[in-house]
């Protein structure tokens, strides 16, 4: 955001590889963005673009196969990656929380949901059992779960998908974090439930002045709930801009490509414009500087020159393209 507000979270030049049996996969390269306190940003892109890996890298829950080659993640100007594992464990859940994609698999199926919220509280702010219970109930009320006294002893399978996701949100918010990452929180839920859950996330984020990262593949959803949008493609941040600016004046060909394939924006099925091709094979050692080059309608020889970085293209607007729209 503006330079006057110190960022809550600052990610700089994050580069992550995964070592697999089939070779090294270059999953993220030089990913950078900032998040101000109380701001909601959306990270959008196709599956495989590195959205979730970015979130997991911030939280420090990457798979063992991942290697962070370079980069800097700062939370309130503290170097998160320099923290000891123990300090990071205490930071995670207390100051920064994550809501996972599938609420049913994120919860333990054989423990009552109230106990699972209590775990988070007991871990970070130990208290007498009666007080923990009171705080579990308070956390459940905060996410508007009806009849929390009864529901806290329920198992995940006894609750609907929407209620399970509210439990996930309650557990994430139980210790009043200042950073909330929501990784596709409503995928798999109905549109009516999605609206309720997203309203809830926005309301608690605004009320608690939480910096929030919403990861989604749904541009329309991001446009309704976010202040700013970070567009990712094949492990690169290709464009960053405030919501109204991004949709009014998209500069990167990939962003316009995504907008052209959104069903709600067109009148007929013939007006849909699919992006040709698919993501490049990220195992290649000779990945071009612009990973969109092979799919890009504006591709020119100059795109092959090394050193492509996001450049200012307007107020708060960054675009990583040599020939932007």
């Amino acid at each position: 955001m503006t330079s006057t507000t110190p960022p809550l979270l600052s990610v700089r030049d994050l580069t992550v590889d995964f070592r697999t049996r089939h070779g090294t996969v270059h999953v993220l390269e030089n990913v950078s963005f900032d998040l101000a306190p109380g701001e909601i940003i959306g990270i959008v892109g196709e599956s495989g673009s590195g959205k979730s890996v970015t979130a997991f890298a911030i939280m420090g829950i990457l798979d063992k196969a991942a290697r962070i080659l370079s980069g800097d993640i700062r939370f309130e100007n503290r170097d998160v990656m320099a923290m000891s594992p123990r300090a990071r464990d205490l930071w995670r859940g207390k100051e920064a929380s994550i809501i996972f994609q599938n609420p049913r698999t994120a919860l333990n199926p054989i423990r009552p949901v109230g106990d699972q919220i209590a775990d988070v509280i007991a871990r970070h702010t130990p208290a007498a059992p009666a007080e923990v219970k009171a705080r579990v109930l308070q956390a459940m009320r905060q996410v508007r779960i009806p009849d929390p006294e009864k529901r806290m002893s329920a198992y995940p399978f006894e609750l609907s998908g929407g209620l399970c996701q509210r439990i996930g949100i309650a557990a994430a918010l139980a210790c009043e974090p200042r950073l909330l990452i929501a990784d596709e929180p409503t995928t798999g839920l109905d549109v009516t439930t999605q609206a309720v859950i997203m309203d809830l996330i926005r309301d608690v984020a605004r009320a608690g002045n939480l910096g929030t990262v919403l990861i989604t593949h749904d541009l329309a959803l991001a446009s309704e709930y976010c202040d700013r949008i970070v567009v990712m493609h094949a492990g690169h941040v290709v464009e960053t801009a405030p919501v109204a600016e991004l949709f009014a004046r998209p500069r990167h060909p990939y962003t316009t490509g995504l907008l052209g394939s959104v069903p709600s924006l067109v009148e007929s099925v013939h007006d849909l414009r699919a992006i040709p091709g698919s993501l490049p094979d990220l195992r290649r050692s000779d990945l071009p500087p612009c990973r969109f080059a092979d799919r890009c309608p504006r591709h020119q020889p100059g795109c092959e020159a090394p050193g492509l970085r996001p450049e200012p293209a307007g107020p708060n607007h960054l675009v990583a393209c040599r020939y932007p729209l």
Partner: protein
Amino acid sequence: MSQSPILCVENLKKHFVLKHSNALTGREPVKLHAVDDVSLSIHPGEALGLVGESGCGKSTLSRLLCRLVDATSGKLFVDGRDISAMSAAAFSKSPLRSDIQMVFQDPTESLNPRFSIFDLIADPLRQLKRPKNRAEVQARVEAAARSVNLPLELLSRFPHQLSGGQKARVGIARAMVVEPRLLVLDEPTSALDVSVQATVLQLLDKIRHEQGVALLFVSHDLNVVRLLCSRIVVMYLGQVVESGATDPLFHHPAHPYTRALLSAIPTLREGARRERIKLDGDPQSPINPSGTRCRLYGRCPAQQALCNRVEPELRTLPDGRQVRCHFADAPAPPETAPAIDPEITPAPLL
């Protein structure tokens, strides 16, 4: 339409018995009403959209229409022929089986990982059409692959070697290979990225127009249904609550549930943004529903005392659409969408 429908169902019901009645204790049977009294018809070359929340019975209805499960009661006609008496097992052996084909939701889980793409597409053909020789199988499989723009070199591969969009097209090709007249598609694009979804939607539209195949498109995404279908049927708790032509239904929904469903869809178009209508409260249970109140009662923003006493009938409005609501005649509130929504401008930092 003067043509007779390919598929027509009348008063179709599917009740799953959860607990049988007990003569000793006098207990009534406990039944889940998955599909309750649904009538609809699909004409040749038509695209019909079926929408509703999960649990509203749309998947059960699509399985009933494909004759994968047997209905509790009601009538089914294929080309005017009453097939209600034919069991699902008998139907799968009848020549009518190839007329109605289904495309399943998750292309990864609905393809056998041990079959090559060729065998996956050839399998329904061998089962249903009794091809004379290998050359015929080869020719028909390649024709089906071409009709869905699947490169022929992929035929020798296995599902795990294909992308999500390619697997979705294999699912459509194996339905198309037996030359059906009706394709039932259960959320065919919900697992795909928007860009891939766009190509699959265009492919389905092409198949419909070039080959005259009727589509029944089951989805919870009204925006997708709007692009593909000329008619939409909205379901809630096993019942049809509204059905009609796409444009009027989309622009002036008559049923409160349709209005809530439309308003919940996030949209990028500022002018199309609707005032959010929230459905508060929990839905009623589909188990032994009361026959004397509206099934939306308790969540409906427009409910009145009458709705708790009398269950509304499905009735036809002057413009031809069908609505199950006592108060649907009242003109729909004008779509007062603000030109610029406050939500789209960044809120000031608190």
